[in-house]
């Protein structure tokens, strides 16, 4: 069987259902919390490909990097939708978010370029620690 980096070429009923449920979960979390949908996608999809490819293989490493990019592609339109809803509901005014535009564009481009330059293990460790620290601080703050 030819290896695919992201094995969803076979559109079985269970695969379609899995992707729909995953997308719904990510979308719901994104709308409720303003973030987190991408985290869910990355973790679940990574677990999915980990069961399919040999550990420490180049194919697995490439699949992990593909997952990051595909998760971004899913969350982009979902976040547009959620953000529009926040603006239309009056919760968010243009003046309050204008400062993020320029640095987020510059940082996003640099981050996209860095994805291929950094070791995957460091990426995972950094991601997990950042997420954990954020969570603890927010629970303590609430």
């Amino acid at each position, binding site marked *: 069987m030819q290896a695919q980096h992201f094995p*969803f*070429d076979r559109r079985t009923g269970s695969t379609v259902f899995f*992707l*729909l449920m995953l997308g*719904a979960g990510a979308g*719901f*979390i*994104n*709308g*409720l*919390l*303003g*973030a*987190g949908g991408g985290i*869910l996608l*990355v973790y679940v999809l990574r677990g999915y490909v980990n069961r399919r490819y040999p550990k420490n293989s180049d194919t697995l490493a490439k699949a992990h*990097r593909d*997952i990051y*990019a595909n998760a*971004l*592609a*899913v*969350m*982009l*339109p979902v976040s547009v939708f959620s*953000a529009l*809803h*926040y603006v239309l509901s009056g919760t*968010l005014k243009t003046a*309050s978010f204008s*400062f993020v*535009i*320029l*640095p*987020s564009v*510059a*940082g*996003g*481009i*640099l*981050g*996209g*370029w*860095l*994805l291929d330059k950094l070791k995957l*293990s460091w*990426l995972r*460790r950094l*991601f997990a*620690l*950042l997420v954990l*620290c*954020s*969570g*603890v601080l*927010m*629970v*303590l*703050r*609430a």
Partner: protein
Amino acid sequence: MIWIDMIVTFIIAVLSGMGMGSGGFLVLYLTFFRKFPQLTAQGINLVFFLFASASAMTVHLLHRKMHLSAILLMVVAGLPAAYLGTRLALVLPEALTTRLFGIFLIIAGLPGVFRSTREKNSEKT
């Protein structure tokens, strides 16, 4: 102060562009240090993510394999679910939303930390 906001946003955008997400850091920064209301911070985070991920995608499209059919399926289900989530966020008390956010991040972060530790230990043997 705006310069600090922009520098923090830039750093978080780099992480987001690498596919790691913002880790809730921007929401945390805006609510903890800048005293924004939780919902406003969440909304700003969404806008930030739009621009950061759209920019990162211009790089990813050149180098990564994109599975359009899988993406489409997840987006089709994600949009109505995002609407429901947003509606719920607007009616829930702020303290509850903050706590839910924090709990979600802890649940999301713990497996990654232990998995990384296990992999590090297995490399030593």
